[in-house]
């Protein structure tokens, strides 16, 4: 089967995933700059972000969690954009790759949300936004799978 078989319309799911990943990328970039002290304040206020971001769970294997998010969203966005080139509209491998990446991101987000709820006991609104985006990306990557399965 060639990549050009089937639908010639641009796959909407991939467009949505690319836009969502862009939002995730921007949030992760903001949080990374915050972590490196280039943004925000050096004081504690009523919010909980500084508590989450300065906890020892904000670093995973020596790498700031936000930086992992930054790279993850960039890769997902890259794959989604690759899949939006007309000759790759119906490339099934890209849909599978998106699904695998999105699942990894979703599971990782679940783990971070678990830490916030049960271990750190503080919620950071940017972390919540990122978790919502990761969940939406996963849903759209799941929705993208049957489109190409239908093709004989």
């Amino acid at each position, binding site marked *: 089967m060639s990549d050009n078989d089937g639908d*010639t319309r641009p796959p909407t799911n991939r467009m949505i995933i690319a836009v969502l990943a862009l939002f995730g990328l921007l949030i992760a970039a903001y949080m990374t700059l915050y972590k490196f002290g280039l943004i925000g304040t050096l004081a504690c206020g009523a919010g909980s972000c500084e508590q989450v971001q300065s906890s020892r769970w904000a670093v995973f294997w020596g790498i700031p969690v936000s930086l992992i998010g930054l790279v993850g969203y960039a890769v997902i966005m890259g794959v989604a954009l690759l899949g939006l080139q007309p000759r790759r509209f119906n490339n099934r491998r890209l849909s599978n790759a998106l699904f695998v990446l999105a699942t990894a991101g979703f599971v990782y987000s679940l783990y971070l949300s678990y830490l916030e709820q049960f271990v750190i*006991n503080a919620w950071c609104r940017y972390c919540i936004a990122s978790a919502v985006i990761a969940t939406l990306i996963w849903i759209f990557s799941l929705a993208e799978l049957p489109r190409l399965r239908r093709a004989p």
Partner: protein
Amino acid sequence: MAQKNRARQGSNLKSFYWVLGVLALAGVGAIAWLVMRTQTQRAAVEPVAVEAARDPQALVAMARGVAIGRDDAPVKMLVFSDFMCPFCGTFAAQMEPLITSEFVEPGTLQYVYYDFPLGGSHRHSFLASRAARCAEEQGKFWEYHNLLLGKQSDWSPGTKPPVGKLLGYGTELGLDRAAFEACVESDKYQDIVSANRMLGEQLGVNATPTAFINAKRISAEVAMDIKALRQLINAELAAAGLPTTTTTE
């Protein structure tokens, strides 16, 4: 027909790339603006004058700080701090030793600690402040304060009050266990800690750490910068007609 489809698909994609590009530009712009704003805020060393801070004891009668340094020191530095705030931990670890050796020990400055338990997600700060007062009873406030801030990640998490851990730190410092336990498990010092927080509120404190040098409020960014602090303290000394401190760097 196919050509028409292809044309439409092309224009769909084109508008998609436009939307994506505009969003990306807007996002990058917003982040750049936030970075710039942070940088300019940090550069501002302009203190805020708060007249009432000249005589804080009269403001909220119950409030009582913990001081180090001479009572007649020409410069007074008040610091409002929260034991669960990570930045207070950084401030205490990095700045307090510098301030003590450079200004407190020569008798230029009196350093006064005030509690400002933020509440909210900092749910154990109030208890920690009270426990530190109980340690003060036995002459170990600063040792206990350093231990609490150094071990934040050990006792801060969790929803249950970490009474056992707070008592354990007392034992670690050789405090009289029975007296310390009786104090921590009572409501002793809740009035002083509350009054300290109220005093802070009246002085316009809304984040920790917030410091005052004589009657001027300074932000955490300035408090974390020894050069800016030196400049402010020397300005106070000069205003009082006293010799400024000279530093060897």
